[in-house]
């Protein structure tokens, strides 16, 4: 039965989004339109499972505030959640023409003490950064994580010239709704597996799923120090 369910899920993945809430078509992909579709996720369930072992985990969400996500994670984990919208930082630096200062900015961006965060929802924000900025952000995030803490990152496997961010709305632990909104710059060059592993050299990849939505979902864990 489980296999049958899995096959159906895969079939839906092949067919693309499960449903499109907005009445837009492929031609309506202008940045001013809001596109929305639901896709399966395999890493979210594992991310939640990792955090459910913690009492009142501290969760850092690098996406924009999504009210239903706040409710979802609060109810699932009884967590403390801090939303730090990195896309806004990128937009501000693009607008001010100071994009080259992002690496330095990310190094000082977070006020949480090192090794105090249980989980990080990185989403796909690294796709929008040049290599030095991505490295700086990845290093800062790795420092924030507690030993055994985990980070969920999404990486596109396809280059896209469209300047849009994606807001990931959690429907349930196996489904995400992708909602696009205008960005100040498009995704930068797609990161290869090796590139991603180098970015997070202090973390260990525990799971990696190549989804049919052309997103690679990766779950990282910070190894506990050896005694």
């Amino acid at each position: 039965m489980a296999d049958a369910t899995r096959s159906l899920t895969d079939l839906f993945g092949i067919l693309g989004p499960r449903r499109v809430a907005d009445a837009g078509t492929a031609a309506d992909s202008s940045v001013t339109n809001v596109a929305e579709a639901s896709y399966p996720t395999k890493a979210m369930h594992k991310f939640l499972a990792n955090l459910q072992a913690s009492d009142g985990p501290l969760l850092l969400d690098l996406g924009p505030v999504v009210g239903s996500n706040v409710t979802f994670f609060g109810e699932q984990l009884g967590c403390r959640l801090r939303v730090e919208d990195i896309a806004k930082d990128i937009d501000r630096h693009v607008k001010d023409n100071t994009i080259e200062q992002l690496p330095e900015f990310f190094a000082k961006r977070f006020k949480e003490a090192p090794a105090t965060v249980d989980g990080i929802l990185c989403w796909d924000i690294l796709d929008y950064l040049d290599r030095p900025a991505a490295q700086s952000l990845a290093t800062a995030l790795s420092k924030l994580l507690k030993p055994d803490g985990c980070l969920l990152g999404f990486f596109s496997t396809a280059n896209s010239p469209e300047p849009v961010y994606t807001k990931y709305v959690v429907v349930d632990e196996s489904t995400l709704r992708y909602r696009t909104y205008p960005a100040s710059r498009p995704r930068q060059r797609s990161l290869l597996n090796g590139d991603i592993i180098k970015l997070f050299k202090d973390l260990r990849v525990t799971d990696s799923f190549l989804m049919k939505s052309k997103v690679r979902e990766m779950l990282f864990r910070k190894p506990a120090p050896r005694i």
Partner: protein
Amino acid sequence: MVNIGKSVVIKGELSGSEDLTIEGHVEGRIDLRENVLTIGPNGKIKAEVFAKSVVVLGEVTGNVTASEKVDIRDNGSVDGDIASPRVAIAEGAHFRGSVDMQRAGQKAQQQGKPNQPPQGQPQHQPGQQPNPQNQHQHQQGQRVGA
């Protein structure tokens, strides 16, 4: 149910044992631990807020603590940290800060631990505005669903 009208400005501590709707301006501290506080669409609050439930349709600057629920409705705005077991943020609402939705048992357990400051708790003292460093980091608040 008590209503503070649009033209009313209060500076100081506001406490009571009735449900309250604020359409005016309040600065300081609001303490309605057993009651529901509603910030109406015209209400502007610069205060630490403690209540059983808080419904925000207007603007709140300061930390909000509720023993039951915080509900930020469409066009409602909160700049500050929220601590409540249930939090609802509507599409179109504005929120900047952190959310602490720890269950009561977890919180008691954490507070019992020695030498561990409660992370994610409102990080500034009552009466103070949100951490300036935090404000620096977020030059703009986030409008949900925009």
